[in-house]
């Protein structure tokens, strides 16, 4: 115990080699850990008789054909897209303005307000707030609309979004805006030409994060939307069960794959185009 490190330290090359080996082993473990559960997702949909175990499939596309025959499956992806894009748009626009304003305006208790909202959002995204949320949407007459889902999810996610974006806004030097203003730029021009370009990686991250939240959300759309053909994929996925609650693995696996691909693709597109970056985090 006491000898080993000493000897290792004595020869930097050995130490370097050992740390390399350790790192490779560690990375291999990471690959296995994250990859193993995903294997099922890429094999089962192509298997003619999928089981819960990962196995080399007997190749077929019949599961996908079954999805095509389902009355609601294709439409549900469109609905998911509408809700997803809508929520991203609302959250990005409002979040950008609000975080910019919060970053520039000095209101006493500003940070406290933000933290309070962040905490409150945990109540609203929980199941206990479901009745008030439903009644509110009902009062507004928005039941059975995608708009309702967009607004409810936006309300719940905005505090986190503002929290993340504010870091970016804080990092933009005021001098940029001041010089822009000197040249007669209007506030929205400053926002468009100075603030948005600088905070683009943050906006990109927030867009993906929001989409992840919306894409998998079951309870909100399920309760607020009435017509089956308006339901998003997250709700439809739960219908692939038999009377006794047993999963129809053919439909489920194929649907799960189609359901996951857009969001993975979206992530990589956004990442390649804008990249993700975070700023200094909380400055207390």
């Amino acid at each position, binding site marked *: 115990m006491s000898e080993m490190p000493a000897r290792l330290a004595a020869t930097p090359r050995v130490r370097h080699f050992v740390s390399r080996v350790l790192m490779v082993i560690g990375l291999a473990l990471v690959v296995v850990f994250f990859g193993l559960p995903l294997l099922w997702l890429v094999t089962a949909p192509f298997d003619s008789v999928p089981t819960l175990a990962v196995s080399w499939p007997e190749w077929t596309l019949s599961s996908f054909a079954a999805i095509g*025959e*389902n*009355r*609601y*499956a294709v439409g549900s992806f469109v609905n998911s897209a509408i809700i997803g894009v809508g929520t991203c748009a609302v959250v990005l626009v409002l979040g950008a303005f609000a975080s910019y304003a919060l970053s520039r*305006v000095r*209101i006493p208790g500003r940070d406290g307000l933000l933290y309070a909202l962040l905490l409150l959002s945990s109540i609203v995204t929980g199941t206990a707030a*479901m*009745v008030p949320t*439903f*009644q509110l949407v*009902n009062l*507004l*007459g*928005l*039941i*059975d*609309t995608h*708009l309702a889902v967009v*607004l409810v999810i936006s309300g719940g996610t905005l505090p986190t979004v503002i929290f993340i974006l504010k870091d970016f806004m804080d990092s933009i030097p005021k001098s940029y805006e001041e010089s822009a203003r000197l040249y007669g730029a209007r506030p929205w021009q400053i926002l468009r030409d100075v603030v948005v370009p600088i905070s683009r990686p943050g906006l990109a991250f927030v867009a993906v994060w929001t989409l992840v939240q919306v894409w998998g959300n079951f*309870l909100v759309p*399920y*309760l607020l939307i*009435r*017509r*089956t053909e308006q339901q998003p994929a997250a*709700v*439809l996925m*739960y*219908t*692939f*069960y*038999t*009377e*006794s*609650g*047993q999963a*129809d693995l053919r*439909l489920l696996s194929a649907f799960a794959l189609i359901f996951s691909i857009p969001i993975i693709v979206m992530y990589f597109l956004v990442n390649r185009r804008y990249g993700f970056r975070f700023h200094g985090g909380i400055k207390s």
Partner: protein
Amino acid sequence: MVTRRRILTATLASVTTLSLVAACGSGEGEGEGDGGAVTLTITANAISGGKNAAEADWIRDWVIPEFEAAQAEAGNDVTVEFLEEGVDDEDYKTKIALDLQSGEGADIIGIDGIWVGEFAEAGYIAPLSEVGGDAVESWEGWDQMSEAVQSAMSFEDQRYGVPQGADGRVLYYNKELFAQAGLPEDWQPTSWDEVLEAARSLSSLDGVVPIQLNAGTAMGEATTMQGLLPVLAGTGQEVYSEGMWNGDTQGLRDALGLYATIYGEELGDPILQQEAAGRDNSFAQFAAGEIGILLEGDYFWRSVINPDESIGTAPMANRDEVVGYTLIPAQSPGSGVEGRDFVSMGGGTGRVLNPNSEHPELAWELLAFMNSAEAYTERVAGTVSITPRDDVNAEVLASDPMLTFVSENVLPINSYRPGLAEYPQVSVALQEATAAVVDGTSPEDAAAAYEEALIGIVGEENVAAGS
């Protein structure tokens, strides 16, 4: 100051926008009132290509076109919409409760019979004749449904809905395994001891779980309905009687004692009871000949192990030869509820009218149509099941001796669960009691803990004293 005012204006502005959008939203789509065109809606936890697909397809492909055509012939312009759902029962219940609470929802709603009491107490649903008018009382269908079947959708002696089926519970057993263990193929146990003896004989077989009696919370209501309640009924005890809940009774201790024997002697598989998909796995194991005796509903026979193409989740090609079924015996002859020798539990779902319906009488017409002999004959054309109507049963069940057996011998001995709002929580407490016993707690302690939990749920004043 300035910012505050700006916030205020903006808030007002966005609220106005929202309500404008809302106004637009609610303006379209209703389309009724003028020209006599009427839209009715049906909702059920059934969806084509998913959960309860047969029911969904029947509504979409038969009920709606037939009803619309019949109405058109009578000169009425009626459109029927079907809102399909296919989710967990709890989520479905939450959604329709929210709908009904806010004065919305479909005109005809499919619900589980066990929800009738709590929905009625909340004022979400009303007695059928109050909603649908005089036509309800004079409907021909009531004469075809026995009292017991009707009671599944009744509360405080009033009909709140029309049942859409009837079911009962039996003991299934594997005749091949029985033969291997030297047990009779035509098995008719008359007491718990005889069941246990058979199970002990089966335990000599390799890789066979002698008996599956549902326990624990993971199986949810299946533990109560296909487990503790039929066992409890065999002791003559009920969970709720004469307006009071029963806690730590001798009957409950005996019932839990049966669990203790089965799982203590390893006649059952305790881990299976805790698996999230435990019930499905029990089906699959029974179908694979790995379980000797199984307490289940007739649904197991007609759906789960149905050998026909794409019906069952665990089809058994040789079902009719291998699977035997027999009545669930009471603890000892005559010890069951109302002095019965054999017991069963009845559940069942049905459909109610929405009291908020804009066209309640027409909605009743549709509901009656869905429950006509013709409609049921069409409904069970693909897979036979027990309908609530005696006239239809007499025709369609003839082809299936098992369902005839249930209809004739099991339905009359059915007991029913109390349809009260607290029942779901009580049910969980009962499941927890079985879980504790499977885990090694003594039946006495588990029963005492149940009573404590029961008091917490319904209040001390509602628990029968000194039971």
